[in-house]
């Protein structure tokens, strides 16, 4: 794979992410390294084809491969750590094409463009950051500041302090950083809401183009764990197969439609909850994949794998992510990349 300008950027993005996880294993995903694959099917709502001509919304239902994951790039599983969770879905379309939707449990991102993201990733490199002593805690109390929390209380090396410092200097990183501080750990991958972060261009049968943001919402509802109760380090991985043996996990695909003045190319901007919200369909996650390596871990998910009717916006982060995901897939010998290409 020749590295041109874009590939250079992809490599730098990949390297920046890997640098945040000193124990990262070559041949694995740079982030969201630990995951579990499942299959299911998506059934569009009656409203979906009125808003979107994309094939996945034409009905009646579409087989889907789903990968749930933890955000960390470490090969060591820590389901119990405070972390972003991911839900990548690949729609296997009747025409033979594929469409992906990649979502995480944060509603907003940390950077507006690749340069900002590189700065943010650099700031997040782990550094020794001991818990504050008594004097510091007294000072924090006098400053009316809460006790600091650490994603993994057992690990004194993390990037939280660097990220906070970066966000203090870069306003665009603040909404994402505050959202990350408010993260909770779910009781199940099926009990969290996931957001696609970016805006997408949606075209309706009458030719109206809307910018939309998509989310998967669990029908069972969101439920975080009690942070005072110790849970096993692999509880999310163990819980999903047990849950799916009992019944499918259901998610509703919702979209928010941009209003006038909303930032449609900037994933650091939060849209108000007053936006028009439409139900696009329901996903039933029915079973865990038998061959996790072949059918899921090797599989390439890419946020820019879209089909006519639901296309990428001009969000520079989305564009860069598309290429970086391809680069990552190429490095780890993944399948299904590049998009529309032949080499895997």
């Amino acid at each position, binding site marked *: 794979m020749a590295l041109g300008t874009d590939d250079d950027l992809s490599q730098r993005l990949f390297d920046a992410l890997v640098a945040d996880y000193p124990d990262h294993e070559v041949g694995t995903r740079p982030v969201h390294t630990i995951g579990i694959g499942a299959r299911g099917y998506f059934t569009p709502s009656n409203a979906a084809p009125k808003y979107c001509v994309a094939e996945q919304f034409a009905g009646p239902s579409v087989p889907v491969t789903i990968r749930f994951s933890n955000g960390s790039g470490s090969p060591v599983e820590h389901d119990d750590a405070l972390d972003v969770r991911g839900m990548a879905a690949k729609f296997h379309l009747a025409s033979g094409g594929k469409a992906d939707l990649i979502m995480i449990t944060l509603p907003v991102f940390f950077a507006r463009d690749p340069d900002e993201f590189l700065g943010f990733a650099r700031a997040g490199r782990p550094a020794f950051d001991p818990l504050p002593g008594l004097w510091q805690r007294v000072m924090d109390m*006098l*400053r*009316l*500041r*809460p006790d600091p929390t650490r994603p993994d209380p057992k690990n004194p090396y993390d990037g939280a302090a660097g990220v*906070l410092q970066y*966000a*203090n200097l870069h*306003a665009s990183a*603040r*909404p994402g*950083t*505050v959202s990350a*501080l408010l993260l909770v750990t779910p009781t199940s991958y099926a009990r969290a809401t996931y957001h696609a972060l970016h805006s997408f261009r949606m075209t309706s049968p009458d030719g109206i183009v809307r910018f939309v943001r998509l989310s998967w919402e669990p029908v069972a509802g969101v439920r975080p764990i009690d942070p005072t109760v110790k849970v096993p380090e692999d509880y999310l991985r163990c819980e999903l197969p047990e849950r799916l043996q009992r019944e499918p996990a259901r998610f509703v695909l919702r979209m928010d*439609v941009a*209003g*006038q*003045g*909303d930032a449609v190319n900037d994933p650091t901007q*939060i849209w*108000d*909850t*007053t*936006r*028009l*919200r439409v139900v696009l369909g329901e996903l039933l996650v029915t079973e865990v994949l038998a061959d996790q390596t072949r059918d899921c871990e090797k599989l390439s998910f890419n946020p820019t794998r879209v089909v006519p009717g639901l296309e990428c916006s001009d969000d520079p982060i989305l564009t860069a992510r598309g290429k970086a995901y391809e680069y990552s897939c190429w490095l780890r010998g993944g399948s299904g990349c590049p998009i529309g290409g032949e080499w895997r």
Partner: protein
Amino acid sequence: MRWTKLHATMMVERFLIWYWKRRAPVATPQWGWKTSLADNVQQQMNLIMPLADTTGVGKAKAVQMVAANIDELFTGLNNIGTVHSARFDLIGEYLCIITVYDGDHEVYIRDFISVFGSVFDAMIKIVADPPPWPCELYSAEFVKWIGDHEGFQVPYNLTQMFPDEKNLENLSRDLVLLLADNPYVQIGRFSGYPALSTAQIRLAAGIEW
């Protein structure tokens, strides 16, 4: 023992709030002009009015006053045509009007005055700090009084509240100071049909108005 500790904590906090209000004051955000149509429908008004008479008899009078004027209130709300919901609540020692409406805030208040101004006059008579009445004659004062008695609405995006704050570690303190000035706060809102006006919903349902 527990009582002493709690009161000591409150005393310390009161002092710290006093200190930080001078050292690093925060202004209550004033929301600017709304550009999106979606922002101009389903707005909330949370009116919180302290009762003048907080005895049981005083509270009973407040309930009776609303009950006695229910036809005027409901007819007026129907006639305004842009109201999604309105609740009249007695919460502790406060009479509250919690409504969701479409359009401009001041126009909404002036609609209120014109369709059931006499009910507002009755309400004003039982609150602790009334504006001059009748409200139809003193509409500007009344609109201002309403603004002074509205609960502060916290936005979904917390960073939007304190755009000038350069240190995220201070957001918690900023919030403490904001709450010290704004004890009545709406901290979340949800709509099952966001961005749609009363008119759109009634038309879609075929129920006219």
